[in-house]
């Protein structure tokens, strides 16, 4: 493995981590808002709050890690993506900022007017993945032109491209599916039967659309970026395995069995698909201008970053383990028998 590949793999793994835990967070907000609208909020609010409260800041750090890391390993991305992403990334930051801070204001500060807040919180949870997913579309090429003054983004062609919209829709269905499967498991652990039943229903509803939209992307890519499409087909077996895992999850949820295993299979499913996509994207960071090789940092910086990364993991893994043990897998906490909030 070259340093370039190690670097991008590390970043891709953390991005995957962000996708999973942020999806749980975004989807939870949406379900909470939706159930408030339909008068069922008492069923979900507690379960969702108990999960989100201790971890929301950690979720955010996964994102920070990714964008700081990519500029570190691949400084040229700062030039290309930094220039063209000003508008979409700024919008995403503003949404993230409002969502994050108002979550803290409401949970820790007892902000009133909960209804309006719940609603905004729910909607922002869908807008953020939609706006972030644009980056993936842009990376497929043909939306960015590099002229004499630097790279520019063609907003109109981005807006009317079917690829854009299929990726946006996939991001939404995936968010809702990932989060409902996780929360089904969580609610089940909390011995909250009504919440489990409701969330299980959501999981089954969103399973189909996730698979359909994901397949849709492959079709869109064929027209938009044949080179990427070819490489994707070469990896058919990864996607095949992913679909098998998907069926496993749906089967278990449908049979009301082993929700934990169901969520594990889901993580596996997304992991395979995410890496299938990533590997077939290789070596491009931005078609056709930027590859991981010509954007890579110098050797001494790369080595230093990797050393720091390994040392950092040594700190991080035990701490994350402690967090998960105390809150995710602590029966008393999950079931709401403890409330030791400051």
């Amino acid at each position: 493995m070259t340093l370039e590949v190690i670097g991008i793999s590390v970043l891709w793994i953390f991005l995957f981590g962000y996708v999973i835990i942020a999806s749980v967070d975004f989807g939870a907000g949406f379900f909470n808002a939706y159930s408030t609208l339909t008068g069922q909020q008492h069923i979900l609010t507690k379960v969702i709050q108990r999960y989100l409260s201790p971890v929301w800041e950690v979720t955010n750090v996964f994102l920070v890690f990714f964008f700081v890391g990519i500029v570190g390993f691949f400084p040229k991305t700062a030039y290309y993506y930094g220039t063209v992403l000003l508008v979409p990334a700024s919008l995403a930051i503003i949404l993230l900022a409002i969502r994050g801070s108002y979550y803290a204001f409401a949970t820790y500060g007892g902000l009133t007017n909960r209804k309006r807040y719940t609603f905004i919180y729910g909607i922002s949870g869908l807008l953020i993945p939609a706006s972030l997913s644009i980056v993936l579309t842009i990376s497929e090429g043909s939306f960015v032109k590099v002229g004499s003054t630097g790279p520019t983004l063609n907003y109109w062609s981005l807006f009317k491209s079917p690829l854009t919209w299929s990726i946006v829709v996939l991001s939404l269905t995936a968010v809702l599916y990932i989060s409902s499967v996780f929360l089904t498991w969580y609610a089940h652990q909390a011995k909250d039967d009504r919440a489990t039943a409701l969330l299980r229903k959501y999981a089954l509803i969103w399973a189909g659309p996730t698979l359909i939209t994901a397949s849709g992307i492959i079709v869109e890519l064929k027209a938009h970026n044949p080179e990427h499409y070819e490489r994707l087909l070469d990896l058919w077996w990864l996607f095949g395995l992913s679909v098998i895992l998907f069926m496993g999850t749906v089967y278990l949820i449908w049979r009301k069995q082993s929700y934990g295993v169901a969520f594990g299979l889901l993580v596996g499913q997304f992991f395979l698909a995410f890496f299938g996509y990533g590997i077939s994207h290789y070596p491009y960071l931005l078609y056709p201008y930027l590859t991981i090789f010509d954007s890579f940092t110098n050797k001494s910086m790369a080595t230093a970053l990797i050393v720091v990364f390994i040392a950092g993991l040594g700190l991080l893994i035990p701490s994350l383990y402690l967090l998960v043990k105390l809150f995710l897998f602590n029966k008393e906490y999950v079931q709401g028998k403890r409330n030791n909030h400051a």
Partner: protein
Amino acid sequence: MGNEEAVLFSRVLTELTLSFHIIYATIGVGIPLMIMIAQWVGIKKQDEHYILLARRWTRGFVITVAVGVVTGTAIGLQLSLLWPNFMELAGNVIALPLFMETFAFFFEAIFLGIYIYTWDRFKNPKKHLLLLIPVAIGASFSAIFITVVNAFMNAPQGFDLVNGQLVNVNPILAMFNPAMPTKVAHVLATAYMTSAFVLASIGAFRLLKGSNHVYHKKALLLTMKMGLIFSIAAAVIGDFSGKYLAEYQPEKLAAAEWHFETEKGAPLILYGVLADGEVKYAIKIPSALSILAHSTPNAEVIGLDQFAKDETPPLYIHYLFDVMITIGVWMTLLSFVFLIGSWRKWKLISSNLFRWLIVLGGPLSIIGIEAGWWMAEVGRQPWILRGLMRTKEAATTSGQVDVMLLLFSGLYIVLAIGSVVVLTRMFRKNPVERELADRASEKEGATV
């Protein structure tokens, strides 16, 4: 939009975001240490008041952290969005501390989550206190790493530039640049100092508003003690910062001191105004600048005459320098008088006037932070990387920065109002007196 405008708006947006972030960031660096000290004193003295102090500070802290995190995420991305050329170059040399910073954030975020949700969960309260140590370490290390990046912008080293190509990059050497020791130490000391005075001002405000509870008096004494220690440290390290400048960035020191001609035994100019190149109404302390810069009254201090006009920073940074130093000296004196007074039982320190001065101390310290940063950053202009890259070469070529500036201004207004409203409401709804009573009855309930 022409590139001139893109540069202008990028600057304004950077200034706005950083000036806003730094308020919450400074508090975020200092408060965990204060909480730790209060909780430790509480456990040691078996004093419920200090424990409650720690607990209430924690609640407020969570709100400021939230705003710090989201504005920090904004600035982190904006660095690439607004200064792509700078980040491309800097990324090659100084990415290491930025990357380390994310681990500090991780560490802090994880343990903060655990800490706030485990009050009273452990039989042994010391275990709970232990969980705070990573929070305080994580917060201070975030400040250290980000300040290392900023120090590098002032004194870049650790690479060679051959025909526009970066070669021989040494990330460690880049981190340990000459600006780093004084800068990091001064930023940390002033963050602790500011947090202490902000907390002191809350205590004084409660006492003014009629509460006479001993809880607030203990809080005030503790925070003023911390404030004094760290304001002395800030002044001492600030003096070293001046010596660093004299050696490595003489144009910044000369601009801040309105020191136009290179001379021996240079006087220190305090206050005053600049009219048509003439300094008026200033206090001149003979030879003091030579002492500040080189520790001897006769040393030569380089003046602005040694620098090209287009490489001289704006002269208004002198006012910012005055503001920072005045606030530093004033807060040192104020906390010193308070401590002597409380030891000798002077009436003065429990007078309304004195308490109002303490209330004022919190906002003043924050102004000190802002003035200091503006002085340091504007004093580096026209460079973004001193001697290597000018600010205007670094900016984005994108045409939409003005709209983004408007959007972000709106965001910061919302966040500022939101955080202030939430914080005041949180503490007004749940006064100390009631919480102490609640806790006492809880305890009784537990022993019966």
